């Protein structure tokens, strides 16, 4: 009798373990992220650079500012276009745009698209596409801290996905349009509200 009980117990333990490992396999696997920008719209030659965030700014998501001083940007080492997520399935990084010209630059980003579309339910990307126009005064550097997250309970849809591509179209706005048509859409870096 005792023997049968032991065998049953072993089978039960094995079954539970198999289940646990199946669950951890699906939730532990994290696809890589590719951040793409489509440039050249409106004949613009401005580009966006990606950097790791400085550790003390890891929770300052959506902090947006312009600075003249390179050392004041909360960035670490450069980040490649394709990168893996942190262990918790999220990543905070910084987008940087430089204006080396004598004139103010204005730009916006078209809401991002997700590829493959299946991955769209499982990705939360707090980025820069929020119907605003960003302003960079001459010889200044613009940056924004952004955050990407794959919520744990929604990773079921990402089972067969190895890489998620998030694409923004980068649109440079002319100074004339920024001063007239899109005047109310200019992002105020002081309080994050519209000017």
């Amino acid at each position, binding site marked *: 009798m005792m023997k049968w009980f032991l065998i049953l117990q072993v089978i039960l333990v094995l079954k539970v373990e198999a289940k646990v490992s199946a669950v951890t396999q699906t939730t532990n696997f994290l696809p890589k992220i590719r951040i793409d920008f489509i440039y050249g*719209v409106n004949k613009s030659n401005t580009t966006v650079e990606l950097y790791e965030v400085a550790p003390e700014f890891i929770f300052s998501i959506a902090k947006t500012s312009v600075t003249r001083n390179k050392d004041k940007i909360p960035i670490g080492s450069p980040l490649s276009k394709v990168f893996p997520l942190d262990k918790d399935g999220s990543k905070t990084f910084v987008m940087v745009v430089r204006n080396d010209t004598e004139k103010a630059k204005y730009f916006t980003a*078209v809401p991002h698209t997700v590829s493959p*579309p299946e991955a769209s339910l499982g990705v939360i990307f707090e980025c820069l596409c929020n119907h605003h126009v960003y302003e960079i005064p001459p010889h200044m550097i613009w940056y924004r801290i952004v955050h990407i997250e794959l919520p744990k309970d929604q990773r079921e849809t990402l089972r067969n996905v190895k890489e998620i591509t998030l694409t923004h179209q980068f649109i440079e*706005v002319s100074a004339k349009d920024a001063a007239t048509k899109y005047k109310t859409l200019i992002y105020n870096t002081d309080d994050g509200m519209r000017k």
Partner: protein
Amino acid sequence: MRFFIYKIFLLLMIPTAGFCTTYQLQWEFPKELDFDVRVFELSPVYERKLSTNGDIIDVNQLTPLREFKNGKVEISKGGAKILGLVFISRSKEEADFYVAPHSTEPGASTLDFKFTCLCYHHAYHMKKGFMWYRILKLSDITTADEPVKTVYLKHKVVLWNKPAKVH
């Protein structure tokens, strides 16, 4: 008389010439989802029900003002329309689906409109034997002196094989 003809001519021209922006709504479905899409203009009263979705048996339940054929929505400059988006399953079977964020072409027009649509991180359910609808709003924020254009807004719909655990 000549003035009268001229007036009629002008009246006829109003809905088509230079005063409208065309928004072409495009849909891409996987082969498992055999859906028909219809887009209706609804009464502005429906603004109170913006972003709600539900199930209907007949499109007339939404009391549409008119239908935008082939997803071609024309909005006068600076105007807004409340849209009733209806998905009709040809197979009449139930299905779960979600929608990936839409692409915008041309991208440079992104600041010229606002679209409260359905690609907001939600999954939806098509009930067996019903049509599924959602109330959307599309606002044009261009002024009359800007050139006329067509904006293509494309959504990719995804079939969701819902895991048994999720409620």
